[in-house]
């Protein structure tokens, strides 16, 4: 199995990579292939069995201007998990809107559908969020809005919180979904 773990940070091999990319790669384990968003191409996507778009630092909004990445995400048909900044790009690629939405810290989450397991509280670190359009189903919500979304009829998900902190089972469940689909 080959899971692309996409570094969404402001540059390749950044100091933020330790915080937002390595913990995810550590959960994915031997299946992880870390690549910076600037280096993704069709060959890498073709060879992958799934893709995880990681989060990034609070002050980092470079990813929003990465049109190359957004187009690739839009065309990607395999399982995908977008985390925080990754969820924003995932939703943006499918016609949703990125909005100003600051959340820093733990908050309670209400899980509606447990496709990615049950989440009752989660760690948030973002200044922007999304207004998902009607191609997405909300699997979990909190007071600020959707916390887990699923793209209609696809094994593609977005999580607004950071599952590498307190909710590692979400990433593991995503990996299980990929395994079951193979």
């Amino acid at each position, binding site marked *: 199995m080959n899971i692309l773990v996409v570094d969404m940070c402001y540059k390749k091999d950044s100091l933020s990579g330790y915080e937002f990319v390595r913990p995810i790669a550590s959960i994915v384990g031997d299946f992880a292939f870390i690549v910076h968003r600037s280096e993704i191409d069709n060959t890498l996507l073709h060879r992958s069995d799934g893709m995880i778009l990681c989060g990034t*630092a*609070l002050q980092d909004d470079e990813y929003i201007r990465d049109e190359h990445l957004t187009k690739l995400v839009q065309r990607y048909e395999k399982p995908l998990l977008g985390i925080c900044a990754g969820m924003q790009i995932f939703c943006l690629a499918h016609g949703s809107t990125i909005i100003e939405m600051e959340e820093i810290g733990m908050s309670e989450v209400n899980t509606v559908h447990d496709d990615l397991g049950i989440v009752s509280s989660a760690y948030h670190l973002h200044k922007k969020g999304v207004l998902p359009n009607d191609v997405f189903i909300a699997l979990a919500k909190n007071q600020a809005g959707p916390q887990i979304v699923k793209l209609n009829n696809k094994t593609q998900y977005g999580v607004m919180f950071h599952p590498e902190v307190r909710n590692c089972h979400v990433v593991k469940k995503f990996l299980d979904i990929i395994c079951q689909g193979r």
Partner: protein
Amino acid sequence: MRLAILFSGGKDSCLALERTRKLEEVVCLVNIKSANTESYMFHTPNAHLVNLQSEALGIPLFVKATEGEKEKELDDLKSALQWVKDTYDVEGVVTGAIASTYQSIRIQKVCNTLSLWCFNPLWQMDQFDVVKEVIESGYEVFVSGVFAYPMEEKWLGRTLTEEMLKELCDLHKNYGISPSGEGGEFETTVLDGPIFKRGIKVLKIDKKFKNNAGVANIVKTGWKI
């Protein structure tokens, strides 16, 4: 990017500093000196040694004193970070946080208020791996305080070694002690290491231990030759 390191003088601060130096420019150390021994945010034994550590590292130090009252100490952190931002043209702050969301959330919020980047290069690391990396990198780490049963007086003043890591593994298995002391079970002071230009030598310590808690105050130091 010009960065400041939140520096307690312990092993996590030093490892975070080492990782940062390889990628970005570290322009100063910031130490919040708390008068409150119960502070979850900033209190560390041997805080007075940060001046020597700063000299040994060759990095300027800014110390901000705080009474350490819960949440009010964050105002002191904010004013300290504002000062280094204005003085050193700092764009971001680095911490040695590993797993504590309590500390991390508060520092992230303060940095966000000041439009500073916040970096946590040890975040979510396996805590055994942190200690292992510190030992293997060649840091000389002095145990300056223990604050959890069954850590006894004999731990005070010890140097972190592979052997001690094994003992920490046992304590973790049997008593849930965090191997990196992330839960405040023990505190450390770094005396030497790969990022130090000069090593600090401990010449005299004063141990105080009572009710499963104690500190090894370093009262006299010298420079290694």
